[in-house]
């Protein structure tokens, strides 16, 4: 039985359903799909199945549904679902995929619900449904001048079959979608009322901070906790040296539990743990780099199916070769990793900022042995995600600690914990070799990737097979090269844990590919824009954004005037092409970026305000990465521990970002990560135009 029908049936069985005139019938909410519930009082609750991390999914998905259903936007409330894969399907977030995977679902839910409300009104009036219109939560029949609020139709509508494939509105009929709207959480987030996992409190709750292994592979040798136990407020010291949920990597650690955060921190300062070294105890940045160089030169590369033609047979009037290097980087989402678990004898609740609620549920089942229906996962607002919340390490710790203590426990990472125990963006190297004919046209490009992959390190990709995930941004080249070879030497062996990080591999890969094509253009004596356009199919979306950005930034007027130079890039993330023109100058030995023009084609634009915000944010992220961010290792451990040594981009360094939204009829595609990859190459290309020096590793130093 569908849940909507069940709600009404129980109301009827309990005698709550009054049979009588239409007006007095509405007694129960109408919940025709998991995504929307119409309240008898006239409001609507839209349920979003994924976490709101700041990417704007709550507002965007609600806009889609509300538009198809013709709701009064002012009476729409959004709630975030708990973890329930049976009801909601995949609730994970990654790859900027929510709009792509869910827009149709939300539109269809809205349209189907509208259809039964219209049918109920039409039946009541004895008119054709097609002669009725809807607006702001009301069905109207213009010919007779009648109208009825949705709230009056809920019981009748619930008796009608929900169409599976209702007609969706044409683009021109959309009234809410496509118009900028502030995020629904804007007021709460501007007034301290927004509740993050870190803000949730439970009666009797303890706060835990954990002293974790100094490097992956280290194990606990001895714990000296006498002093820590004497700290006022400390309630317990617990060793965490087994992993009850092997799908998630967790570090061995010793938890200090206290009645408040400061006491827990004081307790940890007094704690001494001796660690037995693991195999990577002496890993450092030089060794990592030497290993990447060795991989780059290894004979046993695997070849991607995206290769075409024979690069060795290509005409080569000129051959250009260059190697690009990208460092380890951390997430530094502003709300450090944390989770709150409340494990009782027969049930459990978890509050966590998470991109993997299904994993949270899985970990809870593994730790408690409870069935899924005894476990409630609250996906709280998250203070940033960026891939870090795909990992549930704090959840696994909190579950074990709460079970052990018999009380709710919050595990809180300090900033130092977060930065030294991250799932880092991997370091990698890319070597390119290109050939030009005598007329300056490209005859071949060969691209070799060397580095670790997440899939190999975690064991979900097979050694000896190409791990395409690490070749994103390369394996569907935007340009029509006459011959293209993509090879990779990939490894599981890397001294720190690696993970997903805003746009992941596309960032280093596109840095290499888009810097290199600029090198080719200069070697051919061509304008970098014209050089790219010559390699792009007519009518392609990639060509569309490149043309749009060049027009907006007036590329053809380009001269390095006033010590400012410009660089261009074209990248793609998922199905979303992005073109950027970056202005750079050097001031007192430092790189300044006064302005970035960015054109994006993300298909249907749901909330233009959100798209612009995400593009700007992606550029801020990428600019910090290009200018400042590098994790170095010593003794297997990150040497940067906080914002003093891993500095963030700040307000005075933020360029003016001019966003060009290229209108498109395509389905909505990736936004949140899409503007990240193109910034570094466009900036590097600008710096080359400015200084004549090619920068092939980030962060850039001039």
């Amino acid at each position, binding site marked *: 039985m569908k849940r909507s029908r069940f709600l009404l049936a129980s109301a009827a069985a309990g005698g709550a359903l009054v049979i009588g005139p239409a007006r007095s019938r509405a007694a129960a909410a109408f919940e025709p799909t998991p995504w929307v519930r119409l309240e008898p009082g006239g409001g609507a609750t839209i349920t979003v199945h994924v976490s709101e*991390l*700041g990417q*704007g999914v709550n507002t965007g998905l609600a806009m889609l549904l509300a538009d198809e259903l013709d709701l009064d936007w002012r009476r729409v409330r959004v709630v975030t679902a708990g973890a329930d894969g049976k009801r909601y399907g995949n609730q994970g977030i990654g790859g900027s995929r929510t709009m792509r995977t869910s827009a149709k679902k939300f539109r269809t839910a809205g349209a189907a619900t509208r259809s039964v409300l219209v049918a109920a009104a039409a039946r009541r009036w004895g008119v054709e449904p097609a002669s009725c219109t809807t607006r702001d939560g009301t069905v109207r029949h213009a010919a007779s001048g009648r109208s009825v609020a949705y709230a009056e139709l809920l019981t009748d509508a619930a008796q009608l079959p929900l169409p599976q494939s209702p007609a969706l509105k044409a683009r021109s009929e959309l009234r809410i979608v496509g118009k*900028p*709207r*502030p*995020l629904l*959480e*804007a*007021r*709460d*987030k*501007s*007034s*301290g*009322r927004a509740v*993050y996992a*870190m*803000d949730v*409190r439970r009666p009797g709750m303890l*706060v835990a901070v954990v002293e974790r292994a100094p490097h992956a592979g280290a194990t606990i040798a001895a714990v000296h906790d006498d002093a820590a136990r004497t700290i*006022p407020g400390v309630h317990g010291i617990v060793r965490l040296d087994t992993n009850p949920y092997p799908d998630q990597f967790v570090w061995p650690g010793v938890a200090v539990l206290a009645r*408040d*955060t*400061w*006491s827990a921190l*004081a307790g940890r300062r007094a704690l001494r743990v001796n660690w037995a070294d693991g195999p990577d105890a002496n890993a450092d940045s030089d060794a990592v780099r030497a290993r990447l160089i060795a991989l780059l030169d290894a004979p046993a590369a695997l070849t991607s199916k995206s290769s075409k033609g024979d690069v060795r047979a290509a005409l080569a009037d000129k051959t250009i070769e260059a190697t690009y290097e990208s460092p380890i980087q951390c997430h*530094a*989402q*502003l*709300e*450090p990793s944390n989770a709150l678990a409340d494990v009782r004898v027969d049930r459990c609740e978890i509050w966590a900022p998470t991109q993997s609620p299904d994993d949270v549920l899985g970990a809870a089942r593994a730790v408690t042995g409870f069935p899924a229906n005894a476990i409630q996962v609250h996906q709280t*607002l*998250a*203070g*940033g*995600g*960026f891939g870090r919340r795909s990992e549930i390490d704090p959840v696994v710790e909190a579950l074990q600690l709460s079970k052990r203590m018999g009380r709710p426990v919050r595990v809180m990472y300090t*900033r*130092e914990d977060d930065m030294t125990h991250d799932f880092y963006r991997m370091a990698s190297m890319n070597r390119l070799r290109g050939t030009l004919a005598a007329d300056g046209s490209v005859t071949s490009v060969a691209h070799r990737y060397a580095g670790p992959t997440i899939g190999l390190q975690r064991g979900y990709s097979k050694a000896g097979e190409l791990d395409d995930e690490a070749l994103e941004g390369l394996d569907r080249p935007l340009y029509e090269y006459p011959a293209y070879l993509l090879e990779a030497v990939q490894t599981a062996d890397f001294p720190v844990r690696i993970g997903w990080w805003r746009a992941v591999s596309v960032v280093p890969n596109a840095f290499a590919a888009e810097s290199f094509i600029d090198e080719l253009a200069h070697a051919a004596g061509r304008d970098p824009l014209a050089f790219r356009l010559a390699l792009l199919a007519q009518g392609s979306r990639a060509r569309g954004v490149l043309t749009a950005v060049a027009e907006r930034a007036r590329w053809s007027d380009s001269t390095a005037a006033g010590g400012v130079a410009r660089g261009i890039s074209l990248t793609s993330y998922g199905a979303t092409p992005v073109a950027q023109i970056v202005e750079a100058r050097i001031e007192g030995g430092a790189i300044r970026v006064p302005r970035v023009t960015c054109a994006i084609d993300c298909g249907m634009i749901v909330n233009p*305000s*959100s798209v612009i*915000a995400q593009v*700007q*944010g*992606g*550029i*801020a*992220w990428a600019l910090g990465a290009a200018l400042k961010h590098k994790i170095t290792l010593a003794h297997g451990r990150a040497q940067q521990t*906080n*914002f*003093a040594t891993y500095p*963030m*981009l*700040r*307000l*005075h360094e*933020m360029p*003016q*970002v001019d966003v060009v939204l290229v209108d498109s009829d395509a389905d909505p595609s990736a936004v949140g990560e899409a503007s990240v990859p193109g910034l570094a190459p466009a900036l590097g290309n600008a710096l080359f135009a400015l200084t004549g020096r090619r920068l092939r590793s980030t962060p850039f130093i001039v």
Partner: protein
Amino acid sequence: MARYRLNVNGGAREVRADPATPLLWVLRDGLELTGTKYGCGIAQCGACTVLVDGAPKRSCVLPVAAVREAKVTTIEGVGADAVGRRVQDAWVAGDVPQCGYCQSGMVVATTALLKREPAPSRQAVDDALRGHICRCGTYERIRTAVALAAEKRA
């Protein structure tokens, strides 16, 4: 452990805490004022900013014992003031927050700035907010919202 009588958002609040406890944790754990955020613990990110006698301070490094009789205003109290309210309204109108975790600090610091300088220069805005990190990169909209809040002054 010592007993402190703090003046927070216009009311007297009694807390017991170790004298070295940063005001941040007294507010969050003791007084359940969780709008003030922990981001770094070393006065680098600004997420924990509160007003102490009207001046923006990093509560993560301010020992509770040092607060004494000073008037503490947190993000929860800043809207009681006309300038603070205007800043919050501008933040909504400008669709500033993404994840929102840094915005308590941004709003509090901007309120202090506009009370001191009703029409701040670009440089003054930079100076007031350069100690604040927004990892989502909302900086452009913050700049626009500060200007909007400044324009709307009565």
